[in-house]
């Protein structure tokens, strides 16, 4: 199981499949054909109320599935949306199966189960692999059941439908496992490369400070040697003054070493400090737990790095990112990412998945860009 669910940040939070757009497109195509066959009566059946109702229920099911796969839908609402889809799917399947006669209705049922199979992918987009496999199997059993209730049901047909509806689920699971495996390998490779490069960068950046601190340390050693040689005799005022000066200097150097914060440091290391501005008291940033920091940084970096260009050249280019961290009630912090020129609808699912791992996000859009706001639980340091 650990192979199926690698320990990669965001891996279990979805999305399960690469592209929601493909699944939405496929579902719409199948719904259109399903509606045509239900209402169009290609096979000689006369359209009735149950057919129209089934088409309407399928449309509601599609909307529920789209909602279940939308990155901005709060995670706590997802189980209810999935249940809604399941209810509409079962009702629509039963109604369509009831409309099947010896001579007609078979085609409408075929498209109905195909639509259900496609919607399983959308419904499970933000679920895990086990949930997807479970729902695929349930959908296959239900599809077989619909066929079993038709008058034309014969030996083997239920089994055929069961397998036909199970095949996409199996292919989907195979695809997810393959992608997860590639993702795990790529993540490990990228992490190793980034660690090497960032460590070198960090060494270069800290060398000046280390040398300065070492020089101070050397002076302190010499002072202590002179103090030891005094054998407990009263110290000269000069030595006490030098000790005072070195203490001030050492304290200042230690303060300089701690003047930054982990977020700014990480952004500087990643070379993204020129397009990001962090407004936060160091104390507040320190309150963010080590477990939350990777997600916080990942969100900031995902907002800062450009999305690969598609046909709409430049549409994915981010603007300036301002990060604000403010205190909030009940040991909570309010984190706001203000991004100029950002269209939240074009943010990737990985970004929402990282934001959601911090807390329930709120999004405000305006002509100048967008703000993503999240409340994070961060207890005080003391």
């Amino acid at each position: 199981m650990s192979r199926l669910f690698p320990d990669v940040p965001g891996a279990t939070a979805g999305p399960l499949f690469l592209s929601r757009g493909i699944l939405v497109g496929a579902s719409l195509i199948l719904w259109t054909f399903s509606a045509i066959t239900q209402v169009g009566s290609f096979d000689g059946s006369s359209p009735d109320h149950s057919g129209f109702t089934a088409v309407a229920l399928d449309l509601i099911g599609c909307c529920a599935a789209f909602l279940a796969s939308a990155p901005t839908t709060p995670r706590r609402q997802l189980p209810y949306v999935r249940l809604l889809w399941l209810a509409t799917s079962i009702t629509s399947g039963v109604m369509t199966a009831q409309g099947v006669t010896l001579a007609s209705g078979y085609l409408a049922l075929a498209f109905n189960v195909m639509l259900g199979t496609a919607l399983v992918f959308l419904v499970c987009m933000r679920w895990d692999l086990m949930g997807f496999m479970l729902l695929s199997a349930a959908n296959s059993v239900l599809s077989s059941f619909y066929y079993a209730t038709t008058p034309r049901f014969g030996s083997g047909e239920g089994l055929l439908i069961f397998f036909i509806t199970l095949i996409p689920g199996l292919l989907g699971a195979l695809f997810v496992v393959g992608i997860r495996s590639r993702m795990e390998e790529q993540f490990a490779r990228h992490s190793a490369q980034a660690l090497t490069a960032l460590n070198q960068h960090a060494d270069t950046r800290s060398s000046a400070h280390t040398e300065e601190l070492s020089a101070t340390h050397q002076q302190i050693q010499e002072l202590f040697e002179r103090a030891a040689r005094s054998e407990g005799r009263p110290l000269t005022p000069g030595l006490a003054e030098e000790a005072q000066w070195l203490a001030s200097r050492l304290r200042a150097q230690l303060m300089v070493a701690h003047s930054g914060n982990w977020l700014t440091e990480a952004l500087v290391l990643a070379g993204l400090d020129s397009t990001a501005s962090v407004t936060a008291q160091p104390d507040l940033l320190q309150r963010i737990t080590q477990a939350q920091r990777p997600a916080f940084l990942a969100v900031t970096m995902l907002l800062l790095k450009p999305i690969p260009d598609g046909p709409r050249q430049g549409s994915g280019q981010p603007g300036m990112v301002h990060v604000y961290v403010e205190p909030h009630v009940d040991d909570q912090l309010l984190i706001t990412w203000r991004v100029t020129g950002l269209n939240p609808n074009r943010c990737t699912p990985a970004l929402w998945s990282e934001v959601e791992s911090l807390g329930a996000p709120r999004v405000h859009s305006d002509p100048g860009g967008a703000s993503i706001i999240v409340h994070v639980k961060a207890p005080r340091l003391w």
Partner: protein
Amino acid sequence: MGAWITRLAAYRPTLERSDLLARSGAVMGFVFVAASWLYLFPIMGGPLWHHALAWALVMVLAVCFATLMRTDLWPLRLVIVVGLIALSELLAGASYRQDSDSLLLAHSLLIGATSTVALSLRGSWQSAAYTALLAVLVFGHTITTSIQHRLGPTTFLILVGFWLIMLAIRHTAPRALDIFLRDQAVKAESVAAQAVVRDRSSAAAQDARHLHDTVLRGLTLLARGGAGLAPQDFRSMFAAGAYDDDGPGLRSTGTLTESTMADGRPAALRGGGGVAVVESSTATDVASWLKARAREHSRNGFTVDVFGEGGTLPPDVLLAVADAAGECMVNAARHAGSDHVDVLISRTGPVVSVLVSDAGRGFDPGSLPAESFGVRHSVVERMAHVGGSARLLSTPGRGTTVVLEVEAA
């Protein structure tokens, strides 16, 4: 066979994202052919040569799909399309055809599997024209046979659906894959950056704590003229090498244990004037260590009493708790204006708590300045470094209590 496939693969065009799609199409095509075949072949009628030809076609298609995993050369796609059409015709001949027959669904899926060749569509007009030609071939055959057998639009609609979905995948998937890979790369970089910063900060904080608790304290004593120190304490404190660790900023990101217990044994602090001098000790229980610290800090009228038992702790955790409690004692002696500190040790399950209380002047914890190394780094961060916590409870005029908590496991 392997050499033949390798030779074919050598002639394939430059690898693109679409190659991954072509491979996915090969898997999908193979699965649909296999499912249709398993369902239709057992009920297939007709002469023996029909059966033999159907077997041969399935074998050819299986080889083609296997080859498609390595290359998507145009003749291969043509063979797949023609093979699927021929196989559907052979299997269709074995059954009766009508729109409400479930067998037609299996035939339609078989024909629909031709759409997987659309996944090999590339961004050139030659490729578009060739894919369109294959589509015309499939749709032409479907329309012709539908008219010939007076069938309804079932197969045609399913075929249209398959091709539209595959074209949508071909159009959308490469960019989706690019975005997915980019997101993974950014996440990997963010994890690496956070790890580097965390390790560096941890090492720097460790250095800072070490310097604050030893060197800086020694400098302060010297600046005050060494007041309060006996001559022998003075000599031992400033003897050559007493402070000479690896030097600030030069230590690796090793643990506190590594940096302070080089000989592998637990170490206790001894000395005078609040200056830490490392001494070996075999005690591993919290009470013994804190009593040693209490003796160390009790001087010039200032007393520290230790009560309770906390059992044993791992060496690095024990050292952190003792150092943090010692720092609390030093702070109380310096700033509280009280001449006495009580240290209460207790253990509830795996959690060991140490309360360091004084009845001094107290202060507002919220007003603690950022440059306050003593509390922030030497107490709070030191405890956090070993997975523990420190809480500061103080009110102006009503004393101060510092609660140190850590899990033994």
